[in-house]
């Protein structure tokens, strides 16, 4: 029995209140909306009417089946594609390793809807590939396989970083022990390293799963024409196409949330079956082998992944930005910087939108990092009941489509009885982003903490440190690498969040994503792609600056 550290209940209470405000309330209001169709008008009539109408619909089974299929295919696909490369990164001393890490962060900075559009402009009939080589891949792209392919390439960095980081942390020491005890390298890996790495990898794949079932842009752009619909496209149809059916959308959202909770339960069971402490406080020198004669093969694996996941979509985006008209195609006379000029023109609002997004993303990264660390500590360490509930609450937003969070937030914060409210101010976007992105720091910090022995904290307590001091001086440095990666991810995703921003952006304000989307809808694809190129370049540049500060060792 551990003694309850003094002050820990304060942290637990703060986490609980924070999470309830940020995640619990919007979800509760959404659930109320699902149960009471007139809730948005302040009426509690006809409870469960929307459930009765939506649940027996045969389309629901199909939507749910498709959603599961998509999620599982992407989880497997990212493992197959990025798992081996992450492993290589951990086991071998890769030339220019930090550069590869930065390259593999880029897919996070390309918004999924932009990536889907870039793939479409490249592979569809008449696309860039056909203009250059005479063949197109439209048949594949506009199918379930195409959606899975594009989503794997959007999400593989999560797997790559999880595998490379955890295997590197575990592999060196425990693997070495196994080898000393006479295990073959393969046996040491399968019986020792892999099981110990499971928490980190499972946490990442859970994120991959929930992000796949939550993603709207890619299935909507690529698969709706082949009749492949998922829960999120169904939710959007009810939310955004007249006549608007908020109760029906809320019911579909609850189905999606149930799926995510099930996935969370599975992952939780996998992770907590055993104790997996790997960092005990004894100094560890990560041991990485020289790739030797495998060097060309190792580099080829990295190169192929970078080419498909980073170079191709980036090229599709930049080429679209550089062509004056779409119908003009890839001809010398049609290449120009017009779209960049238009995007950067003073008064176009593009720069303001970019600054808005960068400011909001910075705020979101800072807030979620601090909150995420405290919540993760409560979940992993605090000896209180209900910590699993905290954990679940902190991962839920990842399972909820952005549009659902957005409407939940409107339902909560637009109530006339709040004395002051963040609604209709830019702060509502900060709240929305924090809600949507809090799972990253919590997941990453928790995975980091689970690998850190509690004896370090106990030692600090014996030496007379209080809980805050332990948190800041012991826990923080130990989980900082994980949290920093999470912050980078949060920053990258927050700079480009689209769906919630479209609903919540206060009148008169634009973010990068809403600006680009407006260009797609009403201006030209080229101009949208130009700003998106600028935004990707700026965020990548900022992240490079941060990465450079973490010199030596792995970025993660």
């Amino acid at each position: 029995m551990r003694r309850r550290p003094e002050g820990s209940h304060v942290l637990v209470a703060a986490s609980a209140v924070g999470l309830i405000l940020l995640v619990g309330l919007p979800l509760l209001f959404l659930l109320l909306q699902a149960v009471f169709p007139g809730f948005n008008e302040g009426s509690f009539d006809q409870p469960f009417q929307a459930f009765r109408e939506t649940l027996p619909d045969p389309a629901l089974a199909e939507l749910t089946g498709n959603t599961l299929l998509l999620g599982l295919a992407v989880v497997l696909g990212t493992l197959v594609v990025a798992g081996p490369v992450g492993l290589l990164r951990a086991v071998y001393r890769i030339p220019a390793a930090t550069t590869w890490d930065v390259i593999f962060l880029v897919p996070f900075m390309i918004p999924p809807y932009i990536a889907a559009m870039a793939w479409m402009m490249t592979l569809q009939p008449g696309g860039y590939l056909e203009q250059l080589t005479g063949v197109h891949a439209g048949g594949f792209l506009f199918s379930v396989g195409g959606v899975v392919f594009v989503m794997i390439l959007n999400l593989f960095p999560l797997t790559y970083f999880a595998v490379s980081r955890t295997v590197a942390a575990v592999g060196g020491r425990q693997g070495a022990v196994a080898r000393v005890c006479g295990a073959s390298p393969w046996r040491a890996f399968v019986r020792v390293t892999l099981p110990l790495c499971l928490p980190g990898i499972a946490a990442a794949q859970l994120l991959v799963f929930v992000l796949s079932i939550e993603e709207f842009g890619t299935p909507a752009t690529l698969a709706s024409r082949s009749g492949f619909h998922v829960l999120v496209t169904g939710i959007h149809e009810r939310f955004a196409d007249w006549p608007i059916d908020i109760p029906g959308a809320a019911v579909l959202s609850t189905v999606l949330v149930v799926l995510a909770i099930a996935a969370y339960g599975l992952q939780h069971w996998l992770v907590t079956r055993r104790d997996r402490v790997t960092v005990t406080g004894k100094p560890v020198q990560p041991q990485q082998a020289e790739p030797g004669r495998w060097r060309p093969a190792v580099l080829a694996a990295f190169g192929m992944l970078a080419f498909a996941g980073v170079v191709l979509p980036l090229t599709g985006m930049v080429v679209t930005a550089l062509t004056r008209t779409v119908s003009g195609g890839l001809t010398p006379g049609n290449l120009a910087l017009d779209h960049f000029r238009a995007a950067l023109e003073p008064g176009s609002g593009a720069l303001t939108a970019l600054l808005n997004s960068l400011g909001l993303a910075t705020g979101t990264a800072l807030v979620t990092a601090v909150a995420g660390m405290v919540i993760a500590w409560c979940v992993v360490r605090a000896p209180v009941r209900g910590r699993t509930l905290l954990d679940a609450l902190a991962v839920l937003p990842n399972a909820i489509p952005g549009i659902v969070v957005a409407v939940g937030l409107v339902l909560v914060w637009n109530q006339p009885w709040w004395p002051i409210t963040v609604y209709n101010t830019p702060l509502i976007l900060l709240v929305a982003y924090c809600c949507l992105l809090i799972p990253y720091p919590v997941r990453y910090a928790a995975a980091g903490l689970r690998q850190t022995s509690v004896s370090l904290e106990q030692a600090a307590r014996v030496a007379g440190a209080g809980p805050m001091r332990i948190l800041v001086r012991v826990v923080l440095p130990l989980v900082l690498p994980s949290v920093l990666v999470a912050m980078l991810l949060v920053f990258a995703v927050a700079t480009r969040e689209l769906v919630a921003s479209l609903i919540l952006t206060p009148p008169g304000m634009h973010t990068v994503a809403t600006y680009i989307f407006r260009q797609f809808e009403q201006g030209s694809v080229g101009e949208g792609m130009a700003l998106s190129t600028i935004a990707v370049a700026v965020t990548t540049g900022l992240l490079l600056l941060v990465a450079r500060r973490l010199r030596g060792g792995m970025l993660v």
Partner: protein
Amino acid sequence: MPSSNRAATVMTLTLVSVLGVSTAHGQELTVYSSGPGELANNLVSGFEEETGVDVNLFQSTTGDVMSRLEAERVNPQADVIISASWDSAADLEAEGRLLDYTSSNAESVPDFLVNDTYTAQGVAALSLAYNTQSDVPRPSEWEDLRDPVYTDQVSMPDPAQSGSAYDFVAGLVSDRGEDAWALLDVLADQGLIVPGANRAALNPVLQGGRSVVFGAVDYIALGQAARGESVEVIHPDSGTVIAPRPIMIQADTDQPDQAKSFVDFVLSETGQRMVADVFLMPARADIPADRATIDELTVIETKDDVAADREALLGRFKEVTEGR
């Protein structure tokens, strides 16, 4: 590490400066407008200049404007709403959520585009959008696309995702009955794609993989043509469907007078010229436009009973076009 402190300070300052401009809500007018964004911006700045009233503009797609309105029902924020869907206005009126107002500037707006609570400010028509660089002949009628030469060449916006595409199918079915479904059946046999809303349907035609959009919203394609895209808008002589875009005032507005003067401005000569600038037909018949106008088009009347049964129409459309 002093430099990381400096970085933190810079980041904090950026954040504060962004969040510090939190909008104050005094006696400003709040306008929710669907696209085009350029038009909404021009109307708002023109109105601000003329009246000195500050406007908060929320500009997005019709779907997002409407879901925001629905989510805000318990505490409505918008004073004036500009939608791209005539039906949405009719539904809001039926629920008693609109203020009775007909602008004096609406006198030259045709009667069928004026109601007690909402008035058209601009009108789009549905058309064939044809890529002039394509190898297939230029179609001039809907039925021309029956020709097998158009196999794998036609794209169409999804009536489930685009209000104007819905009006288009409802209009064709009102006008031709079973013949409309037979035409869709032939198109589907010949590889019709229904990739999404209006933009999504136009994109493959611009890039050349397809040649014609069946039921394109004309102002979007006209705008693309003005940007140098090789696309031509064709309004078939046999008749086409129009999609009027209503402007209305929310019933519980705090500033009815300013809201009314905004509607007046949109329907004024200045406002209507701004509408014409984005290739929409101005609702007022006396304002010239650089495109085909309502009296030059053969307009198909949509039967209310056909348009009203949304489930039946969309169900049959899906049956005909999907699962081949």
